[in-house]
Structures are given as C-alpha cells and as structure tokens.
C-alpha cells in the first residue's frame, strides 16, 4: 500500500505497489483485497483496477477507486500508507476489445462509482487508437469523480448529475439516450459500469440502436477464483433462451448486455 487519499467525501483512491498485478492487468479486470487480518470482515472484497501506475514506462502498481459502502470499505479507508494488504489478481475477463474494428466508436458510460474500471479502459482505448466518447453521471457534482484524469488524457466527458449541480440534470442514461438519438446508425460499442438499474437501461438502449454493449456486473464474491460458485448472475445460454448461471469472477465481470437476464 503506497498511499491513499480521499478524493471526495466517502470516495477514496488507493495506490498499491505490485509490478506483477499491474503488468498483467487488462481493463475491466479486478482484484480481491483482504482488508484486515481479523475475521471481521472475513471475506476479501472485489475491486476494479482503476488505473495502472507506471515508472519509466514499466507498470509498477495500480490504483483502486472505491466508495465507502459498509464495514469493509470503511475499514479500508482507515488504513494508512505503509500497511500491507493481501491482494490477488488480476482476475476475471475484462472488456473485450478484440472484435471491435478501428472504425467503431467506443462509447464509455459510467454511473457513480461505476467509473472505477472505465479510466483504465479509456486509456487502453486511446492507446489502441480509438477516441471513445465518455458519458459520466453521478448524484451531484461532488460525486463526479476523476474528470481531470479523463480530460488530461484528451477526453471530454459529457456529464450529468441527478441534482443538476453539474452538466445535464438527470441520469447518465438520459445522456446516452440523446447521444444515441443524435447519431442514429453510428457503428459503435457501448462499455458501461454502474448500478444495476442503470446497466439494464443501457443494455436496452444499446439494443434499441443496434449496438453491442459490454457491461461490468457486480455480485457478492467469496473466492474470486471461480471455485465457490457464489457470484453467479443469470445469463442466457448460447442457444439464446435457456437460463444459465455464470460466474461474475470468471466468465465476467464483463458480460454482453444482450445475454444478461435482469
């Protein structure tokens, strides 16, 4: 654990030193982080890789952006630099960029703390030659996080807040709606992370406009390794209609919007 800073009330940015994890990491992947030696809380917590830290062009560590939700994240926020944390990763399948063509327009959509995996994704897209559109939403201006980092990469996120304190007043799905309406027929792919109702909406919006969507899902986890079968979500079988349970930690956390049964 290198350092930890509060970037907004209740939101923390944690920097961890780990060349191994950093060099293997792909956007959308996550780590399992055991917050404390004690048995309370017992289980490690899944956290997306928010960005990689480089030194002389070598990946030496990574950051985690998190929101204080309950016992675990509260305790984590009380840790100070110098303490060591047990972390395993990178885990899961990240966003799939292999099938998207160079002419495709990536649309990156984040709601609330859902922006966590999206900065790394945006960086990767830029590196590979795409310039994604970035749409971010939050409750209020205060909770619109990391805009500077997107901007300093040359991206200009469109933003919305529910209280109207910054950008468009409303939800990020409203932003996405007008965005897609404005460019009907665009050849693009939607990458999204955020609360479940938002993702459900994003999936149906993307579908409506004929776009593929890749959504990063959450589920409570125990092992993160595919062993406990605790983290499943409902996914449509290859055949298309049958229900199957797939593991967020192994088959996910990123799933195709069309395959998810909400």
């Amino acid at each position, binding site marked *: 654990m290198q350092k930890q800073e509060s970037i907004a009330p209740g939101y923390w940015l944690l920097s961890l030193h780990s060349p191994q994890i950093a060099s293997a990491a792909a956007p959308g992947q996550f780590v399992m982080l055991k917050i404390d030696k004690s048995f*309370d809380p017992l289980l490690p917590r899944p956290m997306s890789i928010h960005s990689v830290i480089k030194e002389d062009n070598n990946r030496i560590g990574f950051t985690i952006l998190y929101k204080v939700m309950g016992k675990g994240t509260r305790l984590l926020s009380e840790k100070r630099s110098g303490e060591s944390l047990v972390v395993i990763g990178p885990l899961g399948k990240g966003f799939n960029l292999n099938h998207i063509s160079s002419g495709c327009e990536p649309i990156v959509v984040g709601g609330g703390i859902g922006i966590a995996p999206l900065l790394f994704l945006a960086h990767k897209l830029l590196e590979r030659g795409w310039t994604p559109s970035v749409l971010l939403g939050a409750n209020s201006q205060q909770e619109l996080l990391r805009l500077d980092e997107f901007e300093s990469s040359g991206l200009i996120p469109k933003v919305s807040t529910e209280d109207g304190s910054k950008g468009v007043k409303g939800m990020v799905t409203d932003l996405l709606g007008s965005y897609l309406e404005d460019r009907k027929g665009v050849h693009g792919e939607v990458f999204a992370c955020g609360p479940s109702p938002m993702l459900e909406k994003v999936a149906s919006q993307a579908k409506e406009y004929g776009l593929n969507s890749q959504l990063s899902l959450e589920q409570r986890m*125990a*092992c993160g390794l595919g062993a406990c079968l*605790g983290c*499943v979500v409902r996914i449509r079988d290859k055949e298309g209609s049958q229900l199957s*349970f797939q593991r967020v930690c192994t088959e996910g956390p990123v799933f195709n919007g069309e395959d998810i049964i909400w």
Partner: protein
Amino acid sequence: MVAESSPILSIELNGLKLKNPIIAASGTFGYGLEYVPLGDLSKLGGMVTKGLCMWEEKGNPPPRICETPAGMLNSIGLENIGIENFITEKLPQLIQYDTAIIVNIWGREIDDYIKAAERLDAVNGIAALEVNISCPNIKKGGLTFGTDPSVTFELVQQVRKRTSLPLMVKLTPNVTDITLIARSAEDAGANALSLINTLLGMEIDVSTRRPSLANITGGLSGPAIRPVALRMVYQTARQVNIPIVGLGGISSLADVIKFLLAGASAVQIGTANFFDPTICWRLVDELEEYLRNENISDVNQLVGAIIEE
C-alpha cells in the same frame, strides 16, 4: 535435542493413505484446477471436489452468498457439472498431481448416490468418495438424509455395496446428537467420517427487508462455527472406531492442531481458502515445522492427545 530426521506427516484413514493431513474441503476448492495458479496440488494431503451428482445441476438463483460475523452463508444449491463431465473434463488434468482426489457425491434420493458410487467405482485416479448426507431427501419430504440414523444407515450401506473405494461419510451438524448418526455410518461400513458440514443459518437485508440469500436459508461456515465443529469432532471421536476428518472454520495451524488433539486424524480447510487462498500449502509447511519444534516424530501422536484431568 533436535530431531534429525523429518517428522512423519502421512496418515492412514482406514484404507485411504494421505501424504499429510491437510485436505481442501468440498465446495471451497472448486474442482481443484481453479487453485492451480496458487500452488502445487501435489503438496497437499488431498482435495475434495465440489459435490457432484449424476446430472448437471444448475443450483440456486443468486444472491447465493453473504458474509456474517466471522463467517459466511452460502446457498449454492450444489451446482455442479455432473459426474460425466467431471470425469472427462477435470479428472484427466487432476490426476497429473500426486494428491488424493476425493470425490464428493450427493443426490436427492438414495438411488442417486448408488448410481454415483457405481459410476465412480471403476474410474482411475479417484482415491476415495466423500458421501455428503446433508442434502434434503425428496422421498422423505425434504428431510435431510443425515439427520436420521436409520436413513443414514441405509444410504451408506447401499453405497458401500456399490464401490470398493474408501468411503468417507460427511455428517451434518444440524442434529441433536451427531454421535448417533456417526455410529450408524460406521455400522453401515463407512471407512471414515468427515465433520462438519455447514450449520443452517439465515440473514436478512434490513434495507430491503428481504432475505440476503435468494434461497432464504443457507449454510454457515467459517471461523464462527469452529467451536461447534471442534466439540462435535471431540464427541464423535469418543464414540466411533473409524478415523475422523475434522473441519469447520479451520484457519490456522493452531486450529489444525486443536482438531487433531480432539481426535481428528486429518482436517479439511474450507472457507479459509476464500480469505487466505494459499493457506492449504502454508499449513503443510507450518505443521511440519511445528512437529519439528515440538520434537514430535509422527503427526499421529497428536491425534486424540488432548489432556483432560
């Protein structure tokens, strides 16, 4: 005085020989292969597969797990790929490792167990079967097999007839007197007993007023249940003559030794794999070191060695 030779770690469970008493527990170690990136399976005494049955089981809808104080609840619903898929997809890779592969089996009626035992009997590379009798018996109105001594007896006896593999019967703790069930399993021909499975529990999410698990109730595991598990191992060891494999909340070397002292010949590590994924390997080393430091030449000397006035 320092022991010159290495202490003996191997143990014999009435027909099943293990290189050391550390076994990964069913349902917490997947099919073993999930943990290959973390350590060499050949170092472990053994591993128990996720509970398998004769069909592909989807399991329960999510959410399936939730954390509790020093423990967790799960209601996976015994999701598994089925015995056939296990044999063709997992076993060939698993048998490359020099460790005891113990297959955990279950069913909804006795016939399911019988078929599973018959199917696995001939298969190469399987060291033993662990018979999970903590499942609801649909023929008896959902009553768990392992809560009734006579049902336990019949089930184990039927399975016994179908296989020459060593049988380890895994007992449920949700009973008034676990020693009665243990004796039934022994009488019916079990080679060994493993205990305990999870305690039935429940959690509610106050903000939604709903059960935290879609299945409403689930199995409690982890350090929270260790005192109950240790007591049951202690009680059972005094009532049966077959070896006992202890489990329930084990998360440290000290815990391993407690179970051995209470009468277990080996232990299984369950939930601890989740919050300490390399624990099984570490325990093998730590146990050896402990024996060396304490000048104990053979781990079997610890079994049942609790001191009582």
